[in-house]
């Protein structure tokens, strides 16, 4: 194993990180589009899906190439194992961003758009995006303090989804004309909750990468 290998590993971490932030950006732009009813931004997010898949494929190949050529062990092996998990979590997060963007586009002309805000989806979105951001920061620097509270933060997100679900039902019972949009917003709450779970997965793997110890967040 040469220094070339460690240079390649460092390069892979940078690329994986870039993909992570790319996916995070898809989600945050989708949430901005939702809040501002910005259809062109939503369209733009949808278009990024192709690039996301491409990043996923090339980085996965890169990880397999490093394994095949260098048979890494210990820290190096854990780093590559973590990278593989981070890219698949990032891909899921980006795709949820795309799904949210699709909702924004399909509901662009309905009258009950302000329900998204009434249902505190933007607030939930901010919580989830900050979890993803901290998990990626931890991956970049190895600083585990960034992910120390992930379990509690995930509990908050789960509770919020529950509240949004009940509120949504109340709105739908009050005015059945909101059912279509409300149902879609409830789906968004569900997507956001899944994104928080993916950030926890990233956090678990970063913990493994840094310490060699497997933990379960939640």
């Amino acid at each position, binding site marked *: *194993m040469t220094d070339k290998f*460690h240079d390649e590993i460092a390069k892979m971490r940078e690329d994986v990180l870039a993909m992570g932030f790319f996916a995070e950006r898809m989600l945050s732009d989708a949430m901005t589009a939702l809040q501002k009813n910005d259809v062109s931004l939503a369209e733009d997010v949808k278009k990024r899906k192709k690039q996301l898949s491409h990043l996923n494929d090339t980085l996965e190949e890169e990880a397999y190439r490093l394994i095949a050529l260098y048979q*890494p*062990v*210990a*820290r190096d092996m*854990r780093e590559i194992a973590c990278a593989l998990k981070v890219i698949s979590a990032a891909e899921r997060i980006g795709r949820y961003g795309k799904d949210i963007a699709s909702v924004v586009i399909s509901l662009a002309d309905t009258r009950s758009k302000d329900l998204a805000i009434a249902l505190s989806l933007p607030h939930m979105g901010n919580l989830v995006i900050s979890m993803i951001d901290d998990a990626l920061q931890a991956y970049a620097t190895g600083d585990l303090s960034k992910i120390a509270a992930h379990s509690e933060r995930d509990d908050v997100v789960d509770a919020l989804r529950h509240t949004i679900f009940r509120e949504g039902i109340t709105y739908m019972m009050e005015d059945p004309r909101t059912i279509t949009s409300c149902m879609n917003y409830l789906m968004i709450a569900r997507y956001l909750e899944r994104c928080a779970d993916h950030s926890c997965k990233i956090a678990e793997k970063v913990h493994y990468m840094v*310490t*060699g*110890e497997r933990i379960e967040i939640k």
Partner: protein
Amino acid sequence: MNDETIIATEKLDLWYGPARALLDITMEIPDRRVTALIGPSGCGKSTLIRCFNRMNDLVPGCRIQGKVTFHGKDIYGNGTDPVGLRRRIGMVFQKPNPFPKSIYENVAYGPRVHGMNDRTRLDSIVEESLRRAALWDEVKDRLSAPALSLSGGQQQRLCIARTLAVGPEVILMDEPCSALDPIATAKIEALIEELKQRYCVIIVTHNMQQAARVSDFTGFMYLGRLVEFGETVQIFESPRDELTENYITGRFG
């Protein structure tokens, strides 16, 4: 470690003249398991395994302090016969070193030296040893051919058969594959897997992937010290010592 310990060292130090080659080595080696010793050249791996069957006795100026026990008995204590010890703790070297005799005679040599002359018994010991060394099928029709006519990998398996012929309990292997091609290496590795059903195998290797593949326990040595000793999976997945980590990931020096 739940496994039964067969060889143990306690605060073992070794000097070659004024140079200290082993420092304060305390370890327990389990029976019927493969234990690998890894570490950079000159770290003391070979010196350590040579302590286990008193091969270092033959080195002028070599001095030992501390304890090495085999089945709980101090092998450097009074009353241990080094020749008898080396029969129970056999050794295979880096370069295959068959005697310039026939295949049959190479394997029969040890039992003969120990006084076995019954031809039928010898035949069955030779066959059994060659079978256990996974060489029988390749040589059974030419047992009287010269051992040196075999390929390198076959010669190495012959040397293993020669070790097995005297009925050892422990097999020490000092870089047994470093002079072999990948196919012969794979055969020896498969053989090691077989051997651990009956014997304790201790292998010194520079090839870390080989240590990872064949061993149950791994010890990492550096500058005469045993830095870390543990289950192979743990050593290669998350070593506890930074020095071990740096060595096995190639971040050394």
